[in-house]
């Protein structure tokens, strides 16, 4: 049993190593999107690049540097190493579940391990049908950070379930929470990029952003993630209330975790209203998506470590 949990930890380290390589490769790819060099090593200006490109679908309007297919070697490496990392990550989650003898989300270490895996899995699944290579660094980076926190700070040895957690609502309430957090995390990443793109405009110092889609496109994507995430979060909240009624004898008791879950729900509800309000759509709405996810992280780290809550054992 301990051997298996040791193995799990080892595989998680392997996943982190793969993600690190992927992060570097994604970063190289992003920076090369803006500056391509000619045969003598001189940087080709972007508008020149569009001019010399052959075989591509030109005409998307001037200085957008979209290199021809096949030239993004770094992106290819990044996607493969992300896939490899996700495979390690998945094995890490499964072996941890086997070692503990229960679903891998009954404490903060396991929960972090699982929702980051869901985030990467979701990204890879969507990248299968859409070109989301520009997003890679901004997904793998935060995941790497969270995994680092998980193994360094949150790690606890695999153990049996506490009787209060041993219930089918653990499957429903918490698994949906992991997916909701992964989806809303991706939405927040997209909102950050949208804002960066929006605020930077055409200025050259953030040329690294030039490989990204336009702010409007990012906003649309961010909205679609948030809409799905909001429904999942609603379910998490409702399932939590039903479970609390079974376990603690009350559906809603303004426990610190419940307060923050409610606050997060209201922030995203405000976002949905903001999108329909003139003057609030676009940039200001994006701030709400980011605030929502910041509140989710506060709900996780601040509430669990600093405030008194009945949820202390896990998320």
């Amino acid at each position, binding site marked *: 049993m301990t051997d298996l949990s040791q193995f799990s930890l080892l595989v998680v380290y392997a996943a982190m190593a793969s993600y690190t390589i992927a992060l570097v490769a994604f970063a190289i790819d992003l920076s090369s999107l803006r500056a391509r060099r000619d045969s003598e090593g001189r940087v080709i200006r972007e508008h020149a690049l569009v001019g010399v490109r052959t075989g591509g679908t030109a005409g998307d309007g001037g200085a957008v540097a979209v290199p021809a297919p096949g030239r993004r070697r770094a992106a290819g490496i990044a996607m493969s190493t992300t896939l490899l990392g996700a495979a390690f990550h998945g094995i890490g989650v499964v072996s941890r579940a086997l070692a503990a003898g229960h679903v891998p989300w009954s404490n903060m270490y396991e929960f972090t391990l699982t929702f980051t895996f869901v985030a990467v899995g979701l990204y890879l699944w969507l990248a299968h049908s859409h070109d989301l290579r520009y997003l890679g660094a901004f997904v793998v980076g935060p995941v790497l950070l969270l995994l680092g926190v998980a193994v360094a700070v949150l790690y606890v040895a695999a153990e049996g379930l*506490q009787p*209060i957690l041993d219930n089918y609502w653990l499957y429903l309430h918490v698994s949906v929470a992991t997916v909701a957090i992964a989806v809303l995390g991706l939405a927040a990443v997209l909102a950050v990029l949208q804002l960066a793109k929006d605020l930077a405009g055409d200025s050259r110092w953030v040329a690294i952003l030039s490989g990204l889609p336009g702010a409007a496109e990012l906003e*649309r994507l961010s909205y679609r993630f948030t809409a799905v995430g909001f429904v999942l979060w609603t379910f998490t909240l409702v399932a939590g209330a039903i479970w609390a009624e079974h376990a*603690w004898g009350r559906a809603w008791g*303004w426990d610190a975790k419940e*307060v923050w879950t409610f606050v997060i729900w*209201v922030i995203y509800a405000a976002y949905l209203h903001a999108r329909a309000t003139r003057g609030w759509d676009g940039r200001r709405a994006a701030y709400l998506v980011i605030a929502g996810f910041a509140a989710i992280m506060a709900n996780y780290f601040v*509430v669990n470590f600093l*405030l008194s809550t009945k949820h202390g054992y896990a998320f």
Partner: protein
Amino acid sequence: MTVVWLRWAWRQLTSMRVALMLLLLLAVAAVPGSFFPQRAQDPVAVARFLTDNPRTGAVLDALGFFSVYSSPWFMAVYTLLFVSLIGCILPRIRDHWRALRSGPPRVPSRLTRFPVHVTGTTALDVEDAYAAVLRRLRGRYRARRTFAGITAERGYLRETGNLVFHVALVGILLAFGYGQLATYRGQAIVVEGESFANSVVDYDSFESGTLVDQRQLEPFTFTLEGMTSRFSETGRPQYFGAEVLVTQPGQAPFRQVIEPNEPLTVTGTRVYLSGNGYAPRIRVTDGAGNVAFAGAVPFLPQDDVYTSTGVVKVPDVTDGDQLGLAGQLLPTAVDDGATLRSVHPDPANPLLVLQVWRGDLGLDDGIPQNVYQLQTDRMEQVTGADGAPLLLVLTPGATAELPDGLGTVTFEDLPRFAALDLRHDPSLDWLLGTTVAAMLGLMGSLFIPRRRLWVVCAARDGVTRVDAAALARGEDASLAADLAQVLGPLELTKDDA
């Protein structure tokens, strides 16, 4: 003048912008309740905060920071929000009802002004083209053939869902309010072998809403036949179960095990297992040799190894001083030379360690006392032969003689107790129903596409010209594809854009 002003205020309140502000305000207003202890949840923590920070505590208290969710400002925010919601939703229900009855709107005069539009020619004649489009629309769109062309609309459920969601939110609020009024809840500690009857006197603590008649609680009783606790070797809890025999008037008694997550339900009242521990059975004889006290006394666990504290108050002595015992129960006691401590929650080597007090327990003052605390201000601690405070250390079955002919104390055996929460809340079904309605409505309002679509055909120069456009409410990635699909059977030759 007032009317104008009121109308302006009403329009403001029901506007989306104000709803948005109120939502953000609600989010901000809810947060302090997670940082400051709340009276409804943890009154002891509030009292401690007030003693530790007397000055800031008093200010915060006056501002309602210790009962945020029933404070005037929190109530003001959500009341305004719900008024705004209702004011917004009622006209929309009326409009939606009209739209449902009247069907798709007229065909706009210029279709090319819509972002998603198609123009072209087809080999079919006008009537065949209309018929083909209507066949395609059947089942998916509400379509109407007018003089100006075909108008079609789908996704009425999107707005229906949105309205259901908002109405259901009002329902949730009402269900909560009803729950506050009609709920009673309480706690009771029941020792193995003892019984509980559902009446206010049998509760250790009891609170109820104003609609509850305290003399008419659901009649049932149960006996705790056994309390099972299992721990791993390292002392981690593995299983808890309270075996009860439930009796109701006019019905056959039945047995059930109350476990965490598995409450007992009797006539709408639920009984939850919220804790457990040991209740050492203690017998005290006084100086005259009469039994002054006999019974199981719950000792409350203080940590993971069930180091438990409790007191025994012995007022009914034949004559002389009253007695008070206070101390600890150690389920698996280990003597490491200097101190006694418990290392495991199982009763492998139970020890009862008690100090003894004599004097006036203060029970006759008429002031309610905490049964888990000894008031020693009018008592004096009994000392041993060496002059140090007397410490009784008892194993099950052992009896200790008190000095000065005060009597004896016997630790008879060690039953367990179950701490039970009882709750009767008739609003739960309403809460569940409105919540499910809200979730379904929400999904409809976010994921059902609402589309309008128009197709106009006209014969000109021997060919049939087709103008078509589509419009969506909100985000809709597949709008253009849907229009193309509807126009499929026309096999259009598109005009160059």
